[in-house]
């Protein structure tokens, strides 16, 4: 079984939010709902000033605190390592939203359940890539199998020394970031 992950080269991100729109379209989300965010951070001071854009989404943690605290078992991990929420059993207790250290979950008040990035599992199982990966005009994201050392994503991570966000939190995220 593959173990899917994404590598994100933030030096290439221009903050255009195409990924967010593609994700909303793919998952039929309302305009105020989203599974990915772009945060920015200032680096340095004028004249050597730069703005860094950091795309964020669920890290599909291998040791996922959201799954550990979920009383109903609605949050589960697929055999491909994708963390999902079962809309039929979630009660909307929001414990998982508190437990996620990355704060990558949202509550859908219409359906009364918690939602988050699904790594476009339906596309991926058909051999495709997640919508955010396909859409990005500057190709910031690379998607693939982290267990295959020859996959583009593994090669990129090895070559650039990309790291997950806050690996010290111990959740073992599967989204890696190349920072300048």
């Amino acid at each position, binding site marked *: 079984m593959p173990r899917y992950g994404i590598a994100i080269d933030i030096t290439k991100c221009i903050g255009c939010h195409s990924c967010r729109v593609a994700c909303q379209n793919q998952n039929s989300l309302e305009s105020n709902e989203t599974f990915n965010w772009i945060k920015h951070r200032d680096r340095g001071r004028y004249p050597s000033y730069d703005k860094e854009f950091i795309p964020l989404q669920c890290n599909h943690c291998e040791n996922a605190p959201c799954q550990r605290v979920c*009383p109903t078992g609605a949050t589960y991990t697929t055999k491909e390592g994708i963390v999902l929420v079962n809309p039929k059993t*979630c009660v909307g*207790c929001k414990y998982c939203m*508190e*437990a996620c250290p990355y704060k990558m979950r949202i509550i859908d008040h219409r359906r*009364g359940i918690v939602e988050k990035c699904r790594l476009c599992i339906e596309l991926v199982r058909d051999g495709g890539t997640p919508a955010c990966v396909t859409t990005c005009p500057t190709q910031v994201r690379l998607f693939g199998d982290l267990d295959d050392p020859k996959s583009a994503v593994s090669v990129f991570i090895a070559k650039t020394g990309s790291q997950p966000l806050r690996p010290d939190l111990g959740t073992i995220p599967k989204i890696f970031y190349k920072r300048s």
Partner: protein
Amino acid sequence: MQESAWGWLIITYLFLAGAGSGAFIAAVACDLLAPDWSKALARAGSLVAGPLVVIGTLCLALDLEAGFWQPWRQVYMVNNLRSMISWGFIILSIFIPIALVYAAALNEITFVGKLAQKYITIIEIIGSIFAVATATYTGVLIAVVNGVPFWNTPLMPVLFLASAISTGLAAAMILAAIIDVNTIKTLSNFALGHVIFLSVEALVLMLLVFMSLTRSTEAAASAGMLISGMLSPYFWGLVVILGLVVPFILSVFEFLEYGQMPKALVVGADILVLIGGMSIRALIVFSGTPPQII
């Protein structure tokens, strides 16, 4: 991205579940330790315990979304024994009926009460275990949350247990003063309970807040908000002064003067303890800061 998914309903639940289980413990303590005194406190404690926990649990249910409109979904809530909500579900399902039966037994309500009186000691022992479990679990519920480093400490359940006992005693004493005006003298004995548990609570709170300053950046940010930041007026005003210091001093006098203290001050001290108990839970929830991830 959200800052806090939980709000006033969960805070009220944490408070009422604590106060209810504390009132149960106070009632049992009064019934076992002081059988010769007025039974007003034991009766009052047993009467408030069940209803407080039930109202608290309703707040919790109201905070559910799909699980509230489609209540049958709640059967899934015991699916994951690594989740404190599953444990809470089990503990509350056992504690609530015991607390209601205990109230019936001590107050001789209906035939259930008469029947239960025969087994009163057993009810008191098992009930106390589940009362402690309820009060402690509300603290563990938030202490295991990775998303908020400030909550992530074993001191949290200790604080919640101490606060549950003092707020429960306060709730029981208020009702005792209402149902039996002549009980003020007896209540003075229990003021010692306030002196002890308010001290424990103050000590644990001090450890929690000051040790958080060095635990992690995020825990320090939360503690900073309470000590000198945005929430500090509420922390010092409602929790420390009104919720701990003033009722502590009043309880010392209440105990020393033995029955001479005006009723308004006795009940006043108890109301302040309740305000403090609610405020500390609200402030702990609202000061929760997630890890800095970027």
